[in-house]
């Protein structure tokens, strides 16, 4: 079986070193300084497992026969880097930034309006809700037909990915801020106008929710990139991934997947970092409760 085969090869403690190893493993699992090494260790373990499964071409429920090993993916990465990678990265990053920016501006603006006004909710919520479950891939034909060129079609598909999580989380957090009677009464007693209440109380108290929407939206924009770049025709990491699949060249597919994963994770972290800077007042007690 796949799992037993791997654990047999990666963990082979000899009896003489068992107690010492036991102590260091315990340190790795418990100390705070071990946090980084724990993360590194899990990544290494995962890569080793993958290498073994693909080298052995394990075929039990999941078929690893055609899955390129990490080493093959790495060489695909080297040849990608040597052959002008910037043009692909540039196109993809630009598309994601455009889609995400448009998605956050519209998502936050419409979310604020729907969350705070019954009238706007009645006017906009139904069509938006009906369009929401449509997956990005289903938009491809229309995106080709609706927009003057492929580039704008691709913006649109990444935009759709970013827009909805931002819209929904903004709307929901505004609604919950509005239901916080105490905070609103505080403002009213001090004579705040509706605009001032909105600016100084509703929006700040909705920020954590909006921030979560932005992080998910950024992830989703990358998520939809491969779909969008199916219509690219020339450049882009998603396009590269799709093209490699069409010509049955497997290592670059995985390389493209990993690149998208890395870029997506990195940009989500950037959003998280930036929005956290905007909320120095938050008190997060994770694991100390």
């Amino acid at each position, binding site marked *: 079986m796949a799992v037993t085969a791997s654990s047999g090869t990666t963990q082979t403690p000899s009896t003489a070193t068992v107690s010492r190893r036991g102590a260091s493993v315990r340190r790795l699992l418990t100390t705070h300084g071990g946090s980084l090494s724990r993360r590194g260790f899990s990544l290494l373990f995962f890569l080793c497992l993958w290498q073994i499964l693909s080298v052995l071409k394990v075929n039990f429920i999941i078929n690893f026969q055609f899955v390129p090993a990490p080493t093959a993916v790495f060489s695909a990465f080297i040849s990608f880097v040597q052959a002008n990678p910037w043009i692909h990265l540039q196109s993809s990053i630009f598309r994601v930034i455009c889609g995400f920016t448009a998605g956050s501006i519209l998502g936050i603006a419409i979310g604020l309006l729907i969350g705070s006004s019954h009238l706007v909710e009645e006017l906009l919520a139904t069509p938006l809700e009906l369009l929401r479950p449509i997956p990005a891939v289903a938009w491809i034909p229309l995106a080709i037909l609706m927009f003057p060129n492929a580039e704008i079609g691709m913006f649109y598909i990444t935009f759709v990915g970013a827009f909805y999580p931002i819209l929904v989380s903004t709307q929901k957090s505004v609604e919950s801020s509005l239901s916080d009677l*105490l905070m609103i*009464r505080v403002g009213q*007693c*001090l004579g705040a106008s509706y605009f001032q209440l909105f600016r100084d109380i509703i929006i700040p*108290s909705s920020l954590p929710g909006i921030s979560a929407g932005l992080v998910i939206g950024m992830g989703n924009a990358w998520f939809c990139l491969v779909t969008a770049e199916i219509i690219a025709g020339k450049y882009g990491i998603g396009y590269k991934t799709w093209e490699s699949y069409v010509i049955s060249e497997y290592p670059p597919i995985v390389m493209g997947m990993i690149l998208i994963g890395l870029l997506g994770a990195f940009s989500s972290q950037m959003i998280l970092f930036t929005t956290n800077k905007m*909320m120095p*007042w*938050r*008190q997060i007690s994770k694991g100390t409760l």
Partner: protein
Amino acid sequence: MSNLLEISQVSKYFGDKHTRRCVLSNVNLRVQPGEFVCLLGPSGCGKSTLLNAIAGFIKPESGLISVNDQRVSKPGPDRGFVFQKNSLLPWMTLDQNVGYGLKIQGLSKEKIRNRVDHFLDLVGLLGYRKSFPHELSGGMQQRGSIVRALITNPKVLLMDEPFGAVDAQTRIILQEMLLGIWAQVGITIIFVTHDIDEAVLLADRIVVMGVNPGHIKEIFDVSLKRPRSADSTFLDEFREIKLRVLRSIREETDKLMIAV
């Protein structure tokens, strides 16, 4: 002297037409400028409801409430409010919280800063001006809420069990601090509490409220000499008033027991 606060024939109902229930019945009360009035009573007597109606958070079905001859219809800066707890805005530092009412009025940054510093100094929080609320103790947060409500010079300060959530030692300090500020600023205070000692220590008049439906049962004048401090609670006069108030409230809590 004209009344600062006038409550006449106020009734309030909660619930829809099936569950409709009277929580305040025909409440009449007149408060003089500079007076310290405590609303006291068992839970369910409508004391917080009455305070919320004065603040304009809720509208009574009938009757009239006016502050300084202005009919109350919605919340406004002429009535400062101190909530029970955690009412400082978490995303503002202490000085931003305290100065928020002035910012709304459009005062210049420098004026706001001077006034905020003056009021923070009054409650001994000047050293914490840049702290966020979650970095302050419950007692400090309440002191901040009090000066936030006072800084805009309201006609009346409405306080809803403001010291109910702090420990006994801190409560005494806060009570003495409030008495000091009240004497210095000369503001009218309506203070809701269920703590008899607190009411006797603070008030010029104690309004005891009764249940089923909420109404004003009896009003006691507290002639205990000022300035008062925690030491005043050991005076015979203090105990004598406390006993009379206690008996009055007792009749109401007994009613609740029978109703259960």
